């Protein structure tokens, strides 16, 4: 129980349409990530599903039932907000119990469920503290706990990790993924961070200006981007996109090569250029190579590469790993 279907959903604020007609199907138990640059409408889409915003036209089906006009609390969804939105004057226990209290559950049953959620999330020792006395990660867990106790059909996450520091973010990412494994509930997760999207999702929905640019599994998006936007958005560092004579030589308007699919050769190669900035990560080195007439290409080399600023290098794109796009930005087969 937790399938969601959007049918020709649109949303306008005044005269600006932020979501043009959009269709999307989310299966029960899936971990779906909405990803896109800021302002692409991903949060708005989530809020439409949650019922916090009214759709302008179209239909939202939850579990096969039309839920377009259903108030948020009756949709069987739970949401975790970016700011956590904990109630500051209530203890952690009361925060987690709040939805149960609103649902008029008996106090014993309430306590039972709160204790369960707290033990799942390692919050048992903090139940009597106020949110203000907790760290960011703990607050995040309380917010998740408040969502879990409702036993919803689907969880909605609105950029839940963006207020955490890098190390904690990696931890929470794992915890949320594990939670999804244990609960096997549908989760919809909004983020602008493509690393989060790639690592957590069963299915990624890439959004661009309210449109769905592509839907697919992380590896599908990585290997077969449907258009230039997805190609440039998925993968870190970004795919190198080249236009001009090099592209025309391959019958394309734009060609794209990922940094990891370019090899550095001693002798001649397709492109020759000078090394600009290089970023040493230890395991890898990312070189920015300035190639005349092409621009700057990012190349992934091994950690021990001995190239310096100003050195001349030749680059060869790996065969069969070059993506071709037509003038409309769509992938060519």
């Amino acid at each position, binding site marked *: 129980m937790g399938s969601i279907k959007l049918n020709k959903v649109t949303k306008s604020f005044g005269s600006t349409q932020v979501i043009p007609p959009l269709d999307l199907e989310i299966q029960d138990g899936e971990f779906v990530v909405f990803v896109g640059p800021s302002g692409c409408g991903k949060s708005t889409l989530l809020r439409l599903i949650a019922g916090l915003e009214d759709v302008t036209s179209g239909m939202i089906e939850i579990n096969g039932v039309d839920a377009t006009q259903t108030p948020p609390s009756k949709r069987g969804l739970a949401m975790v907000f970016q700011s956590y939105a904990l109630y500051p*004057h209530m203890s952690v226990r009361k925060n987690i119990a709040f939805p149960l209290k*609103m649902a008029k559950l008996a106090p014993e049953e309430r306590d039972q469920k709160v204790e369960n959620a707290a033990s799942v999330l390692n919050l048992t020792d903090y139940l009597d503290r106020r949110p203000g006395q907790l760290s960011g990660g703990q607050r995040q867990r309380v917010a998740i706990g408040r969502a879990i106790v*409702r036993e919803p059909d689907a969880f909605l996450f609105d950029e839940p990790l963006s207020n955490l520091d890098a190390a904690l973010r990696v931890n929470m990412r794992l915890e949320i993924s594990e939670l999804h494994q244990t609960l096997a509930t549908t989760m919809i997760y909004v983020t602008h961070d493509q690393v989060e999207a790639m690592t957590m999702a069963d299915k990624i929905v890439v959004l661009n200006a309210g449109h769905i640019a592509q839907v697919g599994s992380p590896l599908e998006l990585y290997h077969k981007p449907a258009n230039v936007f997805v190609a440039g958005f998925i993968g870190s560092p970004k795919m190198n996109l080249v236009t001009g004579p090099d592209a025309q030589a391959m019958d394309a308007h734009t060609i794209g090569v990922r940094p990891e699919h370019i090899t550095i050769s001693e002798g001649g190669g397709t492109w020759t250029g000078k090394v600009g900035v290089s970023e040493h990560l230890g395991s890898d080195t990312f070189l920015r190579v300035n190639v005349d007439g092409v621009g700057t290409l990012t190349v992934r080399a091994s950690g021990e590469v001995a190239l310096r600023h100003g050195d001349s290098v030749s680059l060869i794109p790996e065969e069969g790993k070059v993506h071709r796009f037509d003038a409309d930005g769509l992938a060519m087969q």
Partner: protein
Amino acid sequence: MLSPAVLLLLAWMIVPLTMTIYFSFLRYNLLSPGINAWAGWSNYQYFLTDPAFFAALTNTLLLVVGVLLITVIGGTLLALLLDQPIWGQGVVRILVLAPFFVMPTVSALVWKNMFMNPVNGLFAYAAKAVGLQPFDFLAHAPLASIILIVAWQWLPFAALILLTALQSMDQEQMEASEIDGAGPFSRFFYLVLPHLSRAITVVILIQTIFLLSIFAEILVTTNGGPGYASTNITYLVYAQSLLQFDVGGGSAGGIIAVILANIVAIFLMRMIGKNLEA
């Protein structure tokens, strides 16, 4: 080190206070000038045993508590209304604030002559229009009438402070509670009211300070009467020193008022001051 500013402030306070204390121990009556004999505690004794004193004390408390109740509850409701998006919001908010700009004497006169007057007042007119006997507010319910007038003046202040507090309410919290299934009333009692508690504390503290010394409204409407029905401590001190020309007795009353105000302040801080801690 005492900085000049502190010294100036001290002098500002200490000089009148010591003079008042000094006068309160003298037989100092303007009708018999020159006889400023030492009176010991007799001024205090007279003031405290005056039957008017307890009437005035009760009236002061009723006035403060009554106005606080009306302004805090009314102010919260008004703030909730003003927080709704409406057309002409800016103008409406200024209009709501307007009573606060009207001088106490003026507003009391307006209420006395234009609303509560049993012959020409608007209320009398309304009563007559539906065939009722006009009610003489200031004669038959003097204290309640004054509470009404003062509350009218202070309601905008409370509403404005509470409105700013409402506007700082976290919207995501409200949305979270909406998803959690909280209706408007639960949301108000579980989220909004706790959020407002600090602002309400500020309103209560500030208003109490000013309400303890209400004077102009009483002077222009009832003159403390009928009898002592609308006399508060402030008015009693005035009556003692400037109507009976008894400077010594008035000073003693003033000192008692200072002590009472401090007692109220201590109790208030004990009761609600903890809301102000971060």
